[in-house]
């Protein structure tokens, strides 16, 4: 169990948060750049001294500012994967990995252990190369192997995929998922990308302005975001408006700039409504309303972006929104910038949050 409570000022951000991570669990700390995510990791590892705080892991107190306890980074033994990996440029890959092996490991066995770890990540053939000659994906794996070699008491990952191109990132994410599944110590991962947080974390905590604004499974966060910020961060479309209850018992939200959206959850006053892009269907203008979708907005296509096997369509209405559909559907509808369409989704897919 890793537990943490800290209050400190880092640059312009006032960090104030508490969190706990169980052994074997991975918490993804997600938030925009500048939210103070990296500082949280540094405080746990002992690289940053918070003004006030407490850090404990595996029954040991690493930091307690009130009691005057502060262990140095080398006494804490956190496996830290830095955002730029921080591999030692003057040492070969295997020597980087062997660097953190416990002192108890005899000299002769160091190389063997390091090679075994590199083998596990499929880069044993690159063991003699220096980091400068490794690709981004290889460096990431060496950094991960180095952090695991020391048998860490907690694993801290700072944006582990951000320095990789899309193809390497996908492979690295799959590998990382395996590592995290086998890990018996708490893991804390920092990312600015909700999709990565959802993929790698058992739970996601969203950090905004130095505070955790919501914590839960990724699905919970996407389905019931606690605020417009969380909804926006999870990738949902967020529209702002004024809610009132109608005679049917539905909530009618008059959108700022025009248009109306129906939702099931009762709400009143200034609200944000959110809907996932993949819940929005597009049809040609003037097509007869069909099916169960009660929400309809006239929109104009602004952008069409392919993301893997799907297409994200940016739409202009009084407020911007986005829909995601298959490439085949997009082609059939002839979607291109400037084309007009009708966006529709079910009232049940519409979430309402106070602003």
């Amino acid at each position, binding site marked *: 169990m890793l537990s943490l409570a800290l209050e400190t000022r880092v640059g312009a951000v006032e960090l104030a948060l508490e969190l706990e991570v169980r052994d074997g669990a991975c918490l993804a700390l997600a938030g925009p750049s500048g939210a103070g995510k990296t500082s949280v990791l540094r405080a746990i590892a002992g690289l940053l001294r918070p003004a006030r705080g407490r850090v404990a892991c595996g029954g040991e107190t690493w930091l307690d500012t009130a009691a005057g306890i502060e262990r140095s980074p080398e006494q804490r033994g956190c496996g830290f994967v830095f955002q730029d990996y*921080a591999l*030692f440029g003057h040492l070969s890959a295997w020597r980087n990995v062997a660097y953190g092996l416990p002192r108890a490991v005899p000299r002769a066995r160091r190389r063997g252990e390091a090679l075994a770890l590199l083998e596990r990540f499929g880069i044993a053939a690159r063991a003699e190369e220096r980091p400068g000659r490794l690709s981004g994906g290889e460096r990431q794996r060496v950094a991960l192997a180095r952090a695991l070699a020391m048998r860490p008491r907690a694993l801290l990952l700072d944006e582990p995929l951000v320095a990789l191109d899309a193809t390497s990132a996908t492979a690295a994410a799959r590998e990382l998922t395996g590592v995290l599944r086998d890990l018996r110590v708490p893991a804390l991962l920092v990312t600015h990308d909700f999709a990565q947080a959802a993929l790698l974390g058992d739970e996601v905590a969203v950090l905004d302005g130095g505070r955790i604004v919501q914590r839960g499974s990724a699905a919970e966060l996407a389905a019931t975001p606690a605020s417009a910020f969380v909804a926006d961060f999870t990738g949902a479309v967020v529209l702002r408006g004024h809610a009132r209850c109608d005679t049917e018992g539905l909530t009618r939200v008059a959108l700022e700039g025009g248009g109306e959206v129906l939702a099931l959850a009762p709400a009143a006053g200034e609200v944000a409504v959110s809907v996932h892009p993949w819940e929005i269907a597009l049809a040609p203008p003037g097509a007869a309303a069909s099916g169960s979708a009660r929400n309809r907005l006239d929109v104009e296509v602004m952008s069409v972006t392919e993301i893997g096997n799907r297409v994200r369509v940016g739409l202009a209405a009084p407020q911007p929104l986005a829909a995601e559909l298959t490439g085949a559907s997009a082609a059939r509808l002839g979607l291109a910038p400037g084309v007009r369409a009708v966006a529709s989704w079910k009232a049940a897919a519409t979430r309402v949050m106070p602003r």
Partner: protein
Amino acid sequence: MRRPGWFAALLTAALALALAFLTLPVLAIFVHSSPGALLHSLGDPAARDALRLSLETTTIAVAVILLVGTPAAYLLATRAFPGRALVVTLLELPLVLPPAVAGIGLLAALGPDGLLGGALDDAGVQLVLQTAGVVVALIFVAAPFHLRAAQAAFTAVDPSWGEASRTLGAGEARTFARVAVPAALPGLSAGLALAWGRALGEFGATLMFAGSFRGITQTAPLAIYADFASDFDAALALSAVLVAVAAALLLSTKLVGRDALARA
């Protein structure tokens, strides 16, 4: 083909002039002394004494500079503290001090009537007119070269390497020895060569603080000065040796730097 412009010609002329002016005296030393005469002059016991003394004193001085200067430079490069800029400036002051002023300063500080003269005398330490005094003078004038280069070299090491080392279980001392020093090695060796070169050539402060006694304080530069009026050939021969040693130092630094680059 386009004719080179007048400005390009000007640049080339400036470089040619600089090259000619800076290499001519060095070349002249070798042109003036035939290899035979050179070897003969080196057979002179006075010249051999001077070279031996220079080698001994500079080696000791550079060792002291390395042992004390390297950790000091590491501290300056890795920690921020109030007055740091002032400390850096004070450490660099000997770089711009005229050698004669350095000699006077050393006498005023460590001479028999100097600030610490009494304390040194009580401790039984004699510096003035002694070989130990030569070493002190060499350290004073040469240390800032190494301090400067080492500080720059440590500053250039990615700070996250040190942090990674700490999280991997290495304490501050091990991080210094296993990460900072190896990573800064090209810069450190450059600083070392500069300091060694400066120490080899040191003249004024040594003369004023330690004197010029054959076998005790007369280093090679002092011997050259002592010889040049009476025995110009002997002075030339010693000079040729110093040029060779200095060139070897410069070359070895470049090689260390290039090797480190090639490995990166």
